[in-house]
């Protein structure tokens, strides 16, 4: 199946020339993508800009005086913050601008990276998977047109996001134009890196889902490498686009050269993607398909068996990803503790702010982050039901003696059981590494318990998917808003001043005791389990009543 490799040399020559032939039709495809995504792309852009400006505005409201900012600066200098937000700068005279950059830039980078990955894959690998790309390539369209047109559109979207974010930020009284522009373009530069990374991911994986996984994994790896580098102060951070963006030092003493690193990497990776894309067959991947079993095992024939088989690869990847994440943050607990021991004043500040010791609060935050990522898995996994329906694969299954509720139960088991597995993989590795670092075995059990405490909240998100799937299948993807809201409340709740507002109650994450460090309260857990169960019941009942749809 590697017919695509045979004329490599000739094709390389083609790429080098990259004449009109290889790019023919790019303009048409760009217009086509813009037309298809005339709503989607603006929604991404507006959502990202609005969240960033909203975060900046709420910082301004929450920290109105210089003394507020000064005490905040002490917190920013702590290892917990360094691990999540990078090394702070401009702390001697902490301004709102410095705060927005130190505490908001990574959020912006993550958002543009996700936008880039989702959009690029949507127009490259997903198109090939559906077979539509074949139709387009058969027309007078060059070999690189598909990849290049997607990259051009997404790159342009990144530029627009950066400029609009700059405009939005500079509209705030305390933020100056240069700083805002530096902030915005730092986001753009990182977005371009992940646009290129997604273009490579689209070449490597055969399915869009897998390609998105590769793209998001790249995001995770670069974030973690930076965290390790920043905590250990080894300079490892300099391999990560996260660091390059922060090193522009927006709002303090701006410098542009770190962005050259992002741009160079983006160009090199894009070139790589084009080389690979020209070498392989349309619809093919670098990994050729192998023959498999010609019979189904009796496992597969059960609803759970099929749902598990379809998501096995993804489940394993998520579990490994979370385990690695946990294992990268666990060892940092030693540094955090040491740092706090030297600085009793800081310890008090954190204890007052978080109601726990420094290490507990650090581990609690990491656990919360793991739980948020696991929620992403739970939602994605439960959404698989809708994917099966739309693709038309569910019809023949439901035309057998398989009832609708049994069919749902398979996917539900993977979404709930799988999210438990993914969460515990993260908590386990976090616990083992933290316990080893602290010589304190009880930490492992506390962290496992902390992880388990989040499961009902995660299942509520899966329950929302099921409920929408049954009752309002057309908008089932709106379930992602649960995750967005959980992130707002769970990670940004304190700085946004959401902690005491009733809005917090709307997020399942607002109800989970953040272990370790606080007293365990069983009531919210029980309520969350009941809510998840209720949502699932509604969804199943709805699905049993409605038409099965197919495109």
């Amino acid at each position: 199946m590697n017919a695509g490799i045979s004329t490599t040399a000739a094709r390389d020559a083609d790429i080098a020339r990259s004449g009109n032939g290889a790019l023919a039709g790019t303009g048409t495809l760009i217009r086509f993508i813009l037309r298809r995504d005339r709503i989607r792309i603006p929604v991404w852009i507006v959502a990202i800009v609005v969240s960033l400006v909203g975060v900046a505005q709420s910082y301004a409201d929450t920290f109105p005086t210089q003394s507020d900012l000064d005490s905040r600066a002490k917190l920013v200098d702590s290892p917990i913050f360094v691990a999540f937000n990078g090394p702070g700068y401009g702390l001697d005279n902490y301004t709102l601008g410095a705060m927005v950059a130190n505490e908001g830039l990574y959020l912006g980078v993550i958002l543009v990276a996700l936008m880039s990955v989702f959009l690029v894959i949507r127009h490259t690998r997903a198109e090939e998977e559906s077979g539509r790309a074949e139709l387009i390539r058969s027309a007078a369209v060059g070999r690189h047109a598909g990849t290049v047109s997607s990259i051009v559109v997404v790159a342009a979207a990144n530029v627009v996001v950066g400029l609009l974010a700059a405009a939005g930020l500079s509209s705030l009284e305390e933020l100056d134009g240069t700083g805002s522009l530096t902030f915005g373009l730092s986001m753009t530069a990182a977005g371009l890196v992940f646009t290129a990374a997604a273009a490579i991911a689209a070449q490597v994986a055969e399915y869009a889902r897998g390609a998105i996984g590769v793209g998001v994994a790249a995001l995770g790896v670069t974030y973690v490498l930076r965290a390790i580098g920043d905590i250990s102060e080894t300079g490892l951070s300099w391999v990560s686009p996260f660091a390059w963006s922060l090193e522009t030092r927006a709002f303090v003493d701006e410098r542009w050269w770190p962005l050259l690193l992002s741009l160079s990497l983006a160009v090199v990776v894009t070139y790589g993607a084009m080389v690979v894309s020209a070498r392989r067959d349309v619809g093919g991947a670098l990994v050729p398909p192998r023959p498999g079993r010609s019979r189904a095992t009796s496992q597969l024939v059960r609803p759970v068996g099929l749902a598990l088989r379809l998501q096995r690869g993804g489940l394993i990847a998520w579990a490994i990803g979370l385990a690695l994440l946990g294992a990268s943050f666990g060892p940092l607990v030693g540094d955090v503790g040491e740092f706090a021991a030297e600085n009793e004043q800081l310890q008090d500040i954190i204890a007052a702010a978080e109601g726990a010791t420094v290490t507990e609060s650090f581990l609690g935050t990491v656990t919360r982050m793991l739980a948020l990522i696991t929620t992403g898995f739970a939602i994605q996994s439960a959404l698989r039901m809708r994917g099966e329906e739309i693709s038309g694969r569910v019809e023949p299954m439901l035309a057998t003696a398989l009832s609708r509720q049994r069919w749902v139960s398979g996917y539900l088991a993977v979404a709930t059981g799988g999210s438990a597995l993914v969460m515990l993989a993260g908590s386990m590795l976090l616990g083992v590494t933290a316990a080893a670092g602290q010589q304190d075995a009880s930490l492992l059990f506390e962290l496992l318990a902390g992880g388990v405490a989040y499961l009902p909240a995660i299942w509520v998100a899966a329950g929302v998917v099921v409920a929408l799937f049954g009752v309002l299948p057309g908008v089932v993807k709106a379930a992602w808003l649960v995750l967005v809201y959980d992130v707002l409340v769970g990670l940004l709740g304190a700085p946004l001043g959401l902690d005491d507002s009733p809005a917090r109650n709307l997020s399942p994450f607002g109800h989970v005791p953040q272990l370790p460090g606080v007293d365990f309260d069983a009531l919210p857990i029980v309520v969350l389990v009941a809510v998840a169960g209720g949502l699932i019941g509604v969804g199943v009942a709805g699905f049993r009543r409605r038409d099965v749809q197919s495109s």
Partner: protein
Amino acid sequence: MRPVISVEGLVKNFGTTRALDGVNLVVEGGEVHGFLGPNGAGKSTTIRILLGLLRADHGTATVLGGDAWDDAVELHRRLAYVPGDVELWPNLTGGEAIDLQARLRDGFDPRHRDELCERFDLDPSKKGRTYSKGNRQKVAIVAALASDAELLILDEPTAGLDPLMEAVFQECIREAKASGRTVLLSSHILAQVEALADHVSIIRLGRVVEAGTLAELRHLTRTTIDVMTSRPADSVSQFTGVHDLRLEDGRARFDVDTEHLDAVVGHLHELGIRALVSQPPTLEQLFMRHYGAELPGATTQDGVSR
């Protein structure tokens, strides 16, 4: 004996589109029933209702004595379905997809399955992603035939099959019929329906406009006559049931409704027949007549798109 499929007054709306507008359909046990109609007529919609995948707005759909919606799961043990557009899981093999469906029905026979794979020249160890259109279709056909379902519901089952495989398919359907199974066959391949079906229903704009045996339907259509007569045949135009008459020096070509054939040929005889070619009504003509605008009452398009 009660019919295997009995559909009465079926109505289904998708938003403002009326897909079915009072469909009536009866399929008796043991027959191969051709289900024909132009694109968008409502064949697949009717079939999805029979499978309990869609819920009818009005009317009743009874399958194997049970209600198509309420008793869906129980009924599905005893019937098998082949869709016209088979989607497979990209990372599951064809063999796994076959087992997945066939084992969820009564009377799955693995040996029969292997035998079918051989007859259809299907490699069940390949991943779904790598099958061609025709091979995906074969996967669904083998899955449906591998169990001994009493009723086969086939929605354009052979779209994309090559002629050789088409022949194998027809053979399999004949065997199914011989063993007493009932088949509902929706198809655009008229030769296939002509070869297999004993009863036919034609659906158009969400309504069954014609139903009966092939012989009965043939009777409703026209024979084409190409004749040379000693005396000019202008007078033929005065006969009822003669259409599209063309006359050129002693030669006449026209279509005649089969029920008036006798009278017209009698008249031609009087004019002195020197040569005569008569083409029997083809199924194709029958369908052209029903699919096209020629259908009596086809002008009443109301109630279809409101």
